[in-house]
């Protein structure tokens, strides 16, 4: 016997190989996880444009992009952590910590602008590293680790900044650079939006085309199999938390530019907003599955719903309600897709 016969031999196998249209949809969604969030985004945009034509005005679309920039950037870090079957509840805390470190270093301690930016990036990376060390060395669940560091980092933020917000005039120009407008036709894009998009380009490449990226998926899907296959699991996990911390610091930079100030109370919603974006974007909370661009789509979907519902004159509370429903629907779809054996 040289090969298993190609056509299934017995009726039972024939039955297994028969595919209904629904199973075909399953298979396609399984193979292309970005499809369902893209579909939702397109439908939502069309529906909101129908409800209020002003939705499509360049000024409004530019506004959505700017509103999404911070969460979109932070979601990159959250996504790679969730891909390793982890979760990061300290996103907001690290973002605020680094934003305050950047601004306060310059405003209160006289550090030059570029240096304070660099200090912020280092602090963000180290904060992510603290999470990573606790997860990999002490083998604590990421949920618990980041729940703890969430509070630690927030406390450090308040200690370092004395709880005082730092206003625009005291912040060096380089930290506000991310808020700068760039006119593209009648659209007004900020450098912060471009920086966020650049993060997606870079991490799409890294995850798809480098060994590190493949290892992130492998470790998230099956850590023990990855170890036996020769992947340095601990090093991969640690690198993910370090990189995520660096991304959060970039997100903090975008935040300062967007708000034009640095406040210790900003970004308090970042934890849930990033997890929402990641989940709506089709990345599995169980790890190993998903694509980074899905998180951008997820962030955009939330942004479009909030904006579109507001334009349609719907109460703010209903916007929040809709976002909640979206999350549940997205996870339900994810569970459904995961069951598929294409």
């Amino acid at each position, binding site marked *: 016997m040289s*090969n298993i016969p190609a056509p299934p031999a017995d009726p039972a196998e024939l039955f297994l190989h028969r595919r209904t249209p629904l199973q075909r949809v399953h298979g396609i969604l399984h193979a292309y996880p970005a499809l369902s969030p893209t579909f939702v985004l397109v439908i939502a945009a069309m529906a909101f444009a129908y409800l209020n034509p002003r939705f499509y005005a360049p000024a409004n679309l530019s506004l959505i992009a700017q509103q999404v920039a911070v969460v979109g950037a932070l979601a990159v870090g959250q996504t790679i952590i969730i891909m390793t079957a982890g979760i990061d509840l300290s996103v907001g805390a690290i973002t605020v910590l680094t934003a305050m470190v950047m601004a306060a270093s310059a405003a209160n301690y006289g550090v030059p602008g570029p240096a304070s930016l660099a200090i912020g990036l280092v602090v963000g990376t180290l904060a992510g590293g603290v999470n990573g060390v606790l997860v990999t060395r002490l083998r604590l669940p990421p949920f618990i680790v980041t729940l703890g560091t969430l509070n630690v980092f927030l406390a450090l933020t308040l200690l370092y900044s004395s709880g005082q917000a730092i206003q625009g005039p005291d912040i060096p120009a380089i930290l506000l650079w991310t808020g700068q407008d760039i006119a593209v036709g009648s659209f007004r894009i900020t450098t912060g939006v471009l920086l966020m998009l650049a993060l997606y380009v870079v991490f799409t490449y890294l995850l798809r*085309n480098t*060994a590190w990226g*493949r290892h992130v998926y*492998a470790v998230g899907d099956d850590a023990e*199999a990855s170890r*036996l*296959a*020769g992947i340095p699991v601990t090093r991969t996990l640690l690198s993910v938390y370090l990189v995520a911390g660096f991304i959060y610091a970039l997100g903090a930079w975008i935040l300062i530019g967007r708000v034009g100030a640095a406040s210790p109370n900003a970004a308090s919603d970042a934890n849930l907003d990033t997890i929402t974006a990641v989940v709506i974007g089709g990345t599995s909370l169980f790890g*190993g599955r998903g694509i980074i661009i899905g998180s951008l789509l997820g962030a955009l979907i939330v942004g479009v719903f909030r904006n579109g519902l507001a334009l349609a004159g719907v109460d703010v509370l209903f916007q929040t309600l809709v976002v909640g429903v979206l999350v549940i629907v997205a996870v339900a779809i994810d569970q459904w897709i995961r069951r598929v054996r294409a």
Partner: protein
Amino acid sequence: MTASGQPSPVIDATGLIKTFGSVVGLDGTDFDLYPGEVLGVIGDNGAGKSTLIKCLSGAMVPDAGEIRIDGMPVHFRRIQDARAAGIETVYQSLAIVPALDIATNLYLGRELRRSGFLGRVLRMLDHKAMQRGAKAQLQQLGIGTIQSITQTVETLSGGQRQAVAVARAAAFGSKVIILDEPTAALGVRESAQVLRLIRDLRDRGLPVILISHNMPHVFEVADRIHIQRLGRRAAGITPASHTPSEAVAIMTGAVAVGGAA
């Protein structure tokens, strides 16, 4: 083939000891594997089969004893050390990542990068070369029925997954291939295919270590059988010299045998 011609062993080990707290996994076991043979390793639960194999494959470090490859002492600290020495292991769990495709799984942990700037600076993977290599490897082992090399492993049957894991070992194992319970989860037809793969590997000159609970399978493909009992090698037999029930008797201690084949 037996060791009667006295070629030197590919791997041999003497006095391996491994304890886990008060539990003794290996109690001074010896081991040898000769060129071009399929060596069956059998033993009751807790006899130390898995521990022995883990020591040989670098997944565990023995407390005492010596492992030699081609007569040279080696000290494996990690799986990567054993791999560098040409020893590849197919674990019972297969060590395959379901969500990744076949080609990616085959090259997991030793991915091929593009040449030049793309590979060296941008660390870009050479997906095409890996897919070509994976395809060639699967065909070489007579596993041509997989529809696409880019399909995820979770879409494969148990036998196909096993084949992918064996193909990975065969692609990189230059010295020895270790198979841990390769037929345990398979049906009759798929088991037969895996046994055929084992013979193919031997015919290509690679010695194979086959750990299995399945006596008929071991007696079907093994040239020699290492019987592990209570952390030691109880006997070395051949399918010609002993019947399966005699092997079971040695395994369980019903019959005491001195020395090794």
